[in-house]
């Protein structure tokens, strides 16, 4: 695992660099897909940018709210470049809500826009897997297997590799669209559903799971809920057109 690149006095963290490259590729793919779906590409890419920026701001503000005394005493700490002081879940929610509001204000059609986001989202999940390979995060449980890797002083499942390979497969499906009709929202829901199924499967091999009462792995339980919503959404959207009318 090579988490950083030393450039003189600077430490360039490679996992973060890979994520940034992933964001750039995702936005490029989203713009390309938006053009194909005859959507205003610049408005759709603005939606992604606004979601990302407000997501990061929301994550920092939420972290500061959790540690109010520390930040009231040192408010300039809000502008620190430290990635360790972000509240990820809150940031994700803020980014989605603000991006959704922007899309609503700009009267962007929901289902085609979601489909425009699908290949980019799938590409970002591949980048996330690669960043995990580089950082050693999302590591596997101890394993006695021929392909186990020695990581953090134990032989473990190479869950980062599993994750990246499966994400690459999902990206292939999202890009080639063998199942979805163009612009009906199903391609996006397929990416979400397949990603949830991958997480449910792979979480069993992870060594860093958050455990909930009953010994259940939190990520699996949350993924089941999102999977159910996306499958239900697919079944509804398969019967209706983008404008809400019944199909043929």
């Amino acid at each position, binding site marked *: 695992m090579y*988490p*950083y690149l*030393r450039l003189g*006095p600077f*430490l360039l*963290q490679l996992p973060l660099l890979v994520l940034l490259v992933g964001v750039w590729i995702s936005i490029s793919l989203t713009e390309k897909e938006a053009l194909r779906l005859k959507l205003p590409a610049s408005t759709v890419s603005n939606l992604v940018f606004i979601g990302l920026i407000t997501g990061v701001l929301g994550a920092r503000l939420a*972290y*500061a709210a*959790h*540690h109010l*005394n*520390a*930040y009231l*005493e*040192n*408010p*300039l*700490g*809000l502008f*620190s470049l*430290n990635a*360790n*002081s972000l509240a990820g879940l809150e940031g994700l929610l803020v980014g989605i809500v603000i991006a959704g509001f922007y899309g609503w204000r700009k009267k962007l059609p929901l289902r085609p826009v979601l489909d425009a986001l699908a290949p980019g989202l799938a590409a970002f999940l591949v980048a996330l897997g690669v960043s995990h390979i580089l950082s*050693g995060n999302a590591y596997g*449980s101890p394993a006695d297997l021929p392909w186990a890797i020695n990581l*953090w*002083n*134990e032989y473990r499942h190479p869950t980062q590799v599993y994750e990246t390979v499966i994400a690459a497969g999902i990206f292939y499906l999202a890009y080639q669209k063998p199942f979805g009709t163009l612009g009906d929202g199903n391609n996006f829901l397929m990416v979400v*559903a397949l990603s*949830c*199924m991958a997480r*449910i*499967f792979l*979480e*069993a091999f992870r060594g*860093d*799971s958050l*455990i909930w009462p*009953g*010994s*259940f*792995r939190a990520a*699996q*339980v949350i*993924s*089941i809920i999102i*999977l*159910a919503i996306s*499958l*239900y959404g697919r*079944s509804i959207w398969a019967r209706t057109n983008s404008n809400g009318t019944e199909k043929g």
Partner: protein
Amino acid sequence: MVAVLSLAIGWTFLSRFPETAMNAGDPPASPRQGFKAPDFTLELLGGGEVTLSQLQGQPVVLNLWASWCLPCRAEMPAIERVYQSYKDRGLVILGVNTTVQDNEAKAAFFVQEYGLTFPIPLDRDGSVSARYALGGLPTTFFIDREGIIRSVILGGPMSEAVIRSKVEDLMDEAP
């Protein structure tokens, strides 16, 4: 849809975290979040020595630094202020000087220059730097009362708010 969800629920049930693993005791020692902090004994600047495992029961901030490192210089006053705020509540800060790539006299001057009052262990042979897989300076480990690393900050300078927030998380955990 029902079949997929049934499979997912079945797999989730089958792959519940094993009870044996939950009661398996401490995680192995490794320099990353969620693992036991690798133990060491080092001599202190000014005399005496410190053993990390003997500090179990107290939250520990382990900061690896060198006198020539500019971000280390930038963050050290904030670390000292945080130490002054929390030392009476049991916080231990170890400012491990990576003497193997520094100079003991320069380290002593640095400590005097910044008025540091927390212990300064000297990593003369680089063994602690190696055990903590040190790749860049400064690097800071926030270790809880059980000796588990709760957060790692690679690079710097850390803002005082970040240091305080991480320390508050450690202090909030029940002794």
